[in-house]
């Protein structure tokens, strides 16, 4: 155990650095896909989007990021099968591998998911670097399955939401009045869904222990609060007769643009809650080993709150230093999505991703969003979609896992050669 005794502090600092850079990368690049829809449909200005992203990414990462972080930390590998030394070096290689692969993919414009990279990397070092038995194969199955299920599920939800909007609002005699009547209900649903998944699943690390029923009723309260705020904002929206002459649904879309402020918040929260783990999950494992002095790896040490905090701060700094540019660019490219469609895609994605976060499944927010957009498209809601992207995403699945794993093994052997 001399490695941890001798280099404990250095390793910890290095791990924090790697984790922080991964979080920076998530903030700089990944957040843009989550926020671009709102900017593109002109529901939010870029400044508003960045502000919302900062606040809600942070909140999501810090408040609801624990479950997925726990999964990356100890759900994929069997800590009792790996010596503390190898665990520390392996998790570090996983961070390095995922970071490298994402850097390469970003220069090529491949739709590579941060989540897939990190999961592949963690599996890689454990399976090849340690032993095949060191991987919780029973835990990997549900994760991989969730990568297929989450886009499909959010696609179905988005389809349903879009159809409900058609029936309740757009295909009626007075769409504007019905929009004002029913949109607050969607606002309630947004607030409720996000908070119920967060509150009923651990806020223990910030010292809040709620029972399921307490969480449920508190969520009803959050939903009602969101709805009231929404009604106040909606009261300022008036029918624009001039704009309606050209496009009859211009005023109705303005109502949906207000709804999109809330779904954008939910998206940012969901994204933070799921993606922070990609950066700090391995870090959490390293911290666990080092804090216990390299002894009791098998025992589940509680996740320290500062690890999530580090990830949350990293994401926000990534957003502030680079992410705002990416959001602006993507916002300019996505212009064919009107608020009535954008909200359906965002609400479906946010619900699916927050749900996955609550049960600790690391999913790809972007892929889930793509699924939701396709759901709206299948309901004949979008002018034109490039299906070629689906093929690219599928290919990136097939490639990312083995490449992430191979890079992780590569770094693992190097680090082992240096330190052991």
């Amino acid at each position: 155990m001399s490695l941890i005794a001798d280099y404990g502090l250095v390793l910890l600092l290095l791990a924090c650095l790697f984790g922080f850079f991964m979080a920076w990368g998530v903030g700089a690049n990944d957040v843009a896909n989550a926020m671009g829809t709102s900017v593109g449909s002109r529901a939010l200005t870029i400044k508003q989007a960045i502000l919302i992203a900062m606040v809600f990414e942070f909140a999501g990462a810090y408040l609801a990021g624990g479950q997925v972080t726990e999964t990356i930390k100890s759900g994929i590998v069997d800590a009792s099968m790996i010596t503390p030394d190898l665990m520390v070096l392996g998790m570090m290689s996983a961070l390095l591998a995922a970071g490298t692969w994402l850097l390469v993919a970003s220069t090529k414009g491949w739709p590579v998911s941060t989540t897939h990279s990190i999961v592949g990397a963690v599996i890689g070092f454990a399976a090849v670097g340690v032993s095949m038995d060191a991987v919780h194969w029973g835990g990997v199955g549900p994760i991989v399955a969730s990568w297929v299920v989450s886009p499909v599920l959010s696609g179905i939800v988005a389809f349903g939401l879009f159809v409900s909007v058609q029936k309740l609002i757009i295909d009626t005699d007075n769409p504007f009045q019905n929009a004002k009547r029913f949109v607050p209900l969607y606002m309630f649903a947004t607030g409720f869904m996000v908070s119920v998944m967060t509150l009923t699943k651990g806020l223990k690390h910030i010292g809040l222990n709620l029972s399921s029923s307490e969480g449920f009723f508190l969520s009803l309260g959050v939903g009602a609060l969101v709805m009231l705020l929404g009604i106040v904002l909606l009261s300022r929206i008036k029918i624009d007769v001039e704009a309606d002459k050209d496009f009859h649904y211009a005023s109705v879309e303005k109502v949906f643009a207000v709804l999109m402020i809330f779904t954008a918040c939910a998206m940012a929260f969901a994204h933070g809650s799921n993606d922070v783990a990609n950066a700090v999950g391995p870090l959490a494992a390293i911290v666990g080993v080092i804090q216990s002095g390299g002894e009791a790896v098998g025992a589940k040490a509680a996740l320290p709150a500062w690890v999530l905090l580090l990830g949350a701060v990293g994401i926000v700094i990534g957003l502030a230093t680079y992410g705002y540019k990416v959001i602006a660019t993507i916002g300019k490219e996505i212009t064919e999505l009107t608020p009535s469609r954008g909200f359906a895609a965002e609400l479906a994605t946010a619900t699916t991703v927050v749900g996955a976060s609550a049960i600790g499944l690391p999913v790809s927010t972007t892929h889930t969003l793509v699924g939701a957009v396709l759901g709206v498209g299948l309901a004949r809601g979008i002018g034109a979609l490039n299906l070629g992207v689906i093929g690219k995403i599928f290919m990136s699945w097939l490639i990312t896992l083995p490449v992430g794993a191979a890079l992780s093994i590569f770094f693992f052997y190097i680090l082992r050669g240096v330190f052991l």
Partner: protein
Amino acid sequence: MVGINAYYEIVTVRLPALASLRTDPYTCRLLNAGVHPMPVNPFASLFGRSPIGPMQKHFAKAHECAANLVPFFEAVMVEDWAKVEQVQQEMASLEHEADKLKKSVRLHLPKSLFLPVPRSDLLELLSVQDKVANRAKDIAGLMLGREMAIPQALQPLMRAFVQRTVDASTQALKAMNELDELLETGFGGREAALVESMVMELEQIERDTDKMQIEVRRALFKLEKDLPPVDVMFLYKIIEWIGDVADRAERVGNRLEQLLAR
């Protein structure tokens, strides 16, 4: 998923030599044709260019060309050939613009695009839209070329016939203007019913032009023995072509209706 924007920045800021690629005409043409020599953000590239707006713009142009038949015939009837030529030039340039729009819509409709309506139906609608302008331009071209005068006795009937034909095109434009609303409503419901009623009105207008065409031909038949035979032959041709314009406007409506059929 990591964006491409860091890469763009490297390309455009750090490597100035490559930055000129973005303004290079060949690269621009590739970009406009949907061929990206540089990778783009994968999520943003999910969204294709919607054909709905460009389709509407195209028919607006085609209709503008056809609508010029009214001032064109006014000028022909007073035999103001300078004015006739001016209107003909205007129509020819409008038809040319419509052609360009048509090509651009086709270029942006690759087979891999997922559309709310069948791609083949959209392309057929586009082609029918274009034919309205083509026929209107044919009429203007032939009449100017042969300096075709219209006999006094025929003029009132002819004026009404041309006006009703342009009415048909106007009605088709009105229906086409609902295309973006149709997208909003997922090509169904009340909006679809509204468009169907508009197309029914369009069919009524086209039936009017059919009746008027018969009247004009009958009136010409009564006059024909006193007129130069070649002129008469071409007048019959022009009457047939005016009928064609209304007929093609009706077909625009019918194709639009076809988009709604599930």
